[in-house]
């Protein structure tokens, strides 16, 4: 603490204040005044399916522009099929064997990936906190699968909070990152995302991920796959299919069905 005392003394002196008089934070309530996020949270809460689908469309456009492969899955089965296909068709970068690792997350558990490759030489790991060999398994894996806590449509970002069973390395060390995002976790912009983050009980380590790892350090030429995943696949779990015409007919049916009731 000594280094701190001298340091703070020096700052107060530089500010023209009495160097030895500490300034307690409670005397400056405006400094850490919390922005009023009630309205923002309300907006997120009250978003209609229609609006959510609109956000998905915005996310889709922005993700494509960043080189993120985005697909919309109507069910967990559909999502699993996409993953299975990727695991089968993609090739490992650093090893010769196919290992994949996924977060210990209920949405990923429902995909039942462990039993989908029973007759192939593909090993599926789950990132359990207690697993002493997790680091090695993650390094050996060529695909990492995570479930995002928050998605941001405006910048095609997904936010991952580090939690038990959900390490940082799953979305980082494997060459290919597959991220799941539930439609209801999608928000419009960073302002909304920060409002949600503030509400989190435990805000420890977290990361914003926006597209695949990239560099332009050699003659400003963009290359994907500098140190992180060179490919990112985003699967949005959106229970009712959102292709436009289907949705419209659905909405129509919906209103027709509702009319007699109302």
């Amino acid at each position, binding site marked *: 603490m000594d280094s701190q005392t001298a340091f703070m003394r020096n700052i107060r002196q530089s500010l023209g204040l009495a160097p030895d008089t500490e300034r307690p934070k409670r005397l400056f309530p405006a400094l850490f005044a919390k922005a009023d996020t009630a309205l923002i949270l309300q907006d997120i809460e009250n978003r209609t399916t229609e609006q959510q689908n609109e956000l998905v469309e915005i996310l889709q456009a922005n993700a494509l522009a960043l080189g993120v492969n985005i697909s919309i899955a109507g069910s967990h089965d559909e999502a699993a099929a996409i993953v299975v296909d990727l695991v089968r068709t993609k090739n490992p970068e650093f090893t010769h064997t196919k290992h994949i690792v996924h977060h210990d997350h209920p949405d990923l558990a429902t995909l039942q990936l462990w039993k989908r490759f029973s007759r192939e030489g593909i090993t599926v790991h789950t990132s359990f906190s207690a697993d002493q060999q997790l680091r090695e398994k993650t390094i050996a894996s060529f695909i990492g699968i995570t479930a995002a806590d928050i998605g941001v449509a405006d910048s095609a970002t997904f936010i991952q909070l580090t939690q038990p069973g959900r390490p940082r390395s799953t979305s980082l060390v494997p060459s290919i990152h597959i991220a799941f995002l539930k439609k209801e976790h999608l928000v419009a912009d960073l302002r909304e995302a920060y409002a949600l983050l503030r509400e989190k009980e435990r805000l*420890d380590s977290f*990361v914003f991920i926006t597209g695949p*790892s990239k560099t332009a350090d050699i003659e400003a030429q963009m290359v994907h796959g500098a140190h992180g995943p060179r490919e990112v696949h985003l699967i949005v779990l959106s229970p009712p299919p959102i292709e436009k015409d289907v949705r419209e007919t659905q909405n129509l049916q919906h209103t027709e069905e509702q009319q007699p009731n109302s």
Partner: protein
Amino acid sequence: MSATTPSNYRTAATAGIASPRLQKSLHGLQNRFGKGAMEIWATMTDQEMRRRVKDARMNTFAHLDIILAELAKNVRTRGGQVHFAATAQDAIAYTLAVAKRHKVNRVVKGKSMTSMEINIDPVLEDAGIEVVETDLGEYIIQLAGDKPSHIIAPCIHLDRNQIGELFEEKLGIDYTNDPPTLTMAARRALREKMLTAEMGLTGCNLACAETGHISLVSNEGNIRMTTTMPPVLVALMGMERVVATLDEHREALQLLTQAAALQKLSTYVSFLGGPAAEDDPDGPKEFHLVIIDNGRSKILADPEFREVLACIRCGACLNICPVYGKIGGHAYNSPYCGPIGGVVTPLLDGINKHADLCKGETLCGACKDICPVENDLPRMLAALRHKLAYGSDLWNTSQHSPAEAYVYSFWKIVIGNPRFFRLMLRTGRFLQRPFVRKNKMVRKMLGFAGGWTKGRDLPPLARQTFAELWKEKYAATRPNPIEGQNEEGN
């Protein structure tokens, strides 16, 4: 440290101008990122945002003791260790002690300007520790034994052929000048290093006091690797690199990624504020945050320069500066180059020592226009020149060129007195005759004035001044008699 960089402003600038390769890269860079950032500012819907962020930054500085204390408290609550370092030596000693305590053999670095500022690498290396830069550009610079020449694009002065040769020599791969192949070679080499290093060393783009986090932006993912895989992490941050609240963080972050690379967000923004929690499956076991003064409190104390601390190191001012755009980054002889370097390098490292920097900039104002936090760099460059012209006890600055001061006090008398001025002109016209060459230009002046004609010709004094011409040709025909009278009076 570097064999290829002349340390002198003039020689390095001359070398930069003479390099077609550098000129091409700088032109490309400015054309894309300089123009791009200006366009973002012009079309941004929230035109108040830049001002707001600046105001918040300045308000943070006015309460810096409180805000840093809050940051330290929140990091410590999470089990992180916070050290306040008054000087570079202090920060180095602390970091070295951490490394030694853990018997570290290899340190991987995520791009950190602060680590360059305090020049920690040689000390770690002397202690037998391998230090590896992980940002691709920085890695290339390190392999080449060179110095960075841009805040965001450190190896902009090297082309693909040079990098190909370098990799052939240092990484033992077959020669190629294909950027993707070169990148993959570095990816493999560095992955190995990052997975085996015992300690990570990073900077900090923006810390958030309210939540007790540091945050780091990167596109490559090297910072995530550096902050995730090694068991010990040390983050070095300049004491001004902090915001009070999450809300302020968001706005500053958005300005940073847009100004630096025209991105809504960089690929990764990592937030961390302590070691991995008990039940976290990965992350560093030990987390150290080193908050560094190293001359910043002196800047804080001077209202004339405090504003420069608001800088978020986006590098945008380099992407528009006409001087940087020609001479490149090496001439600035500092990790901080371009207009921001022209102000902050002298303030941190000696105004006299870096006298050329503020004199070299043109004060055109472009850096102020592009700066996301509207830093008035031209004003501060002029203020530095003032210190050099008159000396300053506060900044321990001596008058840079007494001869120049004499010339200007003489000049002040001359232009204050029309008759004297005209006499000077006549004398000048007479004296310049032997120097005017066939192309009607003055090629070379004598002695003290010789510097003016070293790199350029000077037009000679005209045979008649504008005032004389006017009087002769038009004064009589001016319709307004009153103004005509004034002319006579002149």
